[in-house]
């Protein structure tokens, strides 16, 4: 590697964010296993969780390999505390009711597809390889969540109300998806990362097209809650990590 030390840190930070987004959302979706409204949906959510977990492993393995000293994927997943996680706040919002979960998923999937498309053109071959693979999977996730948005929004009076309310709760976390910080700028400068701000118009157009099909309205938001990528999280993450990390921390080196 002929990259400078500061670039190495930016690169591992960048990869960690990508891995944490996928890991935390995967863990959240696992919470639906055995509880989804129908058996088919149970299987679908678990499969989406499985894809995201596979992606998280690829990103975290790479992030760990670019750290000094080197860390492995399990170490990064199980032996970091809440303030060391760098995912966007949207993915740690609670599962809530089914509409809350699908709205969160829809806002994430549409952003994720655009981000992965950009990353598939990365000058870093390993990033583009992972992104192309993940992008194909994200296409199916987005089709699924988009169809749920229409069904919920254009369903019963109650499902419509729940979906609209979920949108109003999630929209405060959208700003963070497109915010650029020093790490993002460095990655864009090197041709490695994506210009998040530039993705917003395309994202907004798609999201509003789907919402319109479900008679839902994109809420006006005055707030943009941020900080997830710098380790500032809500209490929700603490409970999630306790569950996810319990076994690995209580029984170090456990195997089955």
């Amino acid at each position: 590697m002929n990259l400078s030390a500061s670039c190495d840190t930016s690169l591992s930070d960048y990869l960690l964010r990508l891995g944490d987004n996928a890991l935390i959302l995967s863990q959240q979706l696992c919470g639906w296993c055995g509880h989804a409204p129908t058996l088919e949906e149970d299987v679908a959510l678990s499969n989406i969780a499985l894809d995201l977990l596979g992606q998280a492993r690829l990103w975290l393995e790479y992030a760990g390999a670019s750290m000094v000293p080197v860390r492995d994927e399990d170490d990064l997943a199980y032996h970091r505390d809440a303030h060391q996680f760098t995912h966007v706040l949207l993915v740690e919002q609670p599962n809530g009711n089914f509409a809350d979960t699908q709205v969160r998923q829809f806002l994430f999937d549409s952003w994720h597809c655009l981000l992965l498309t950009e990353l598939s053109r990365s000058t870093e071959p390993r990033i583009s390889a992972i992104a192309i693979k993940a992008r194909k999977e994200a296409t199916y996730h987005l089709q699924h969540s988009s169809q749920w948005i229409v069904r919920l929004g254009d369903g019963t009076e109650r499902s419509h109300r729940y979906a609209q309310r979920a949108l109003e709760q999630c929209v405060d976390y959208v700003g963070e998806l497109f915010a650029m910080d020093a790490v993002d700028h460095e990655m864009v400068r090197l041709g490695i990362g994506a210009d998040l701000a530039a993705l917003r118009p395309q994202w907004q157009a798609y999201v509003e097209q789907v919402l319109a099909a479900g008679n839902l309205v994109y809420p006006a938001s005055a707030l943009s809650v941020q900080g997830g990528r710098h380790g500032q999280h809500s209490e929700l993450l603490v409970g999630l990590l306790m569950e996810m990390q319990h076994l690995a921390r209580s029984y170090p080196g456990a195997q089955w």
Partner: protein
Amino acid sequence: MVNPHQDATQEQGTSGIWALLAEIPDPEMPYISIVDLGIVREVRWQPDALNVVLTPTYSGCPARREIEQSVRDALHRNGIQTLCIETRLHPAWTTEWVTALGREKMRAAGIAPPLAVLAEWQTLTFWPSSSDAPRPQCPHCGAAQTRLQNPCSGSRCKALYHCDACRNPFEYFKSF
């Protein structure tokens, strides 16, 4: 140390190896082999080992480790002791790599083989309902009037459809 079996196999080039690999079933769909699925990308003799390149289907595919183990077992059983299995992510696996024989085996097992991969996957394309998306033909009666019931089925790579003509459910191997 020279392994006499290995020498014997080496003389056959790699076609014998491909034949061995073509016998290894996919753990989740035992009626089709890992070669039919296009997971095996390359087989190459190196000075001191046999190199086998595998490309995983989905990033979270739970069968990945099992596939690697069956490759090891099959080749060890046939006298190849020094083996190097390489996992290659790029180019990403696609259902376009599923062989014609693989598609035949799927149909015979009552599974609709994957349709062509559309360029739309690279852009945000919204199909308001699943009936707007391209649909597979029923593997039982060949009818085109089919409906998506669930985007996931018995395994990650298949979806569940219903045929409105013969009224049977069937699995479709999703294009990817």
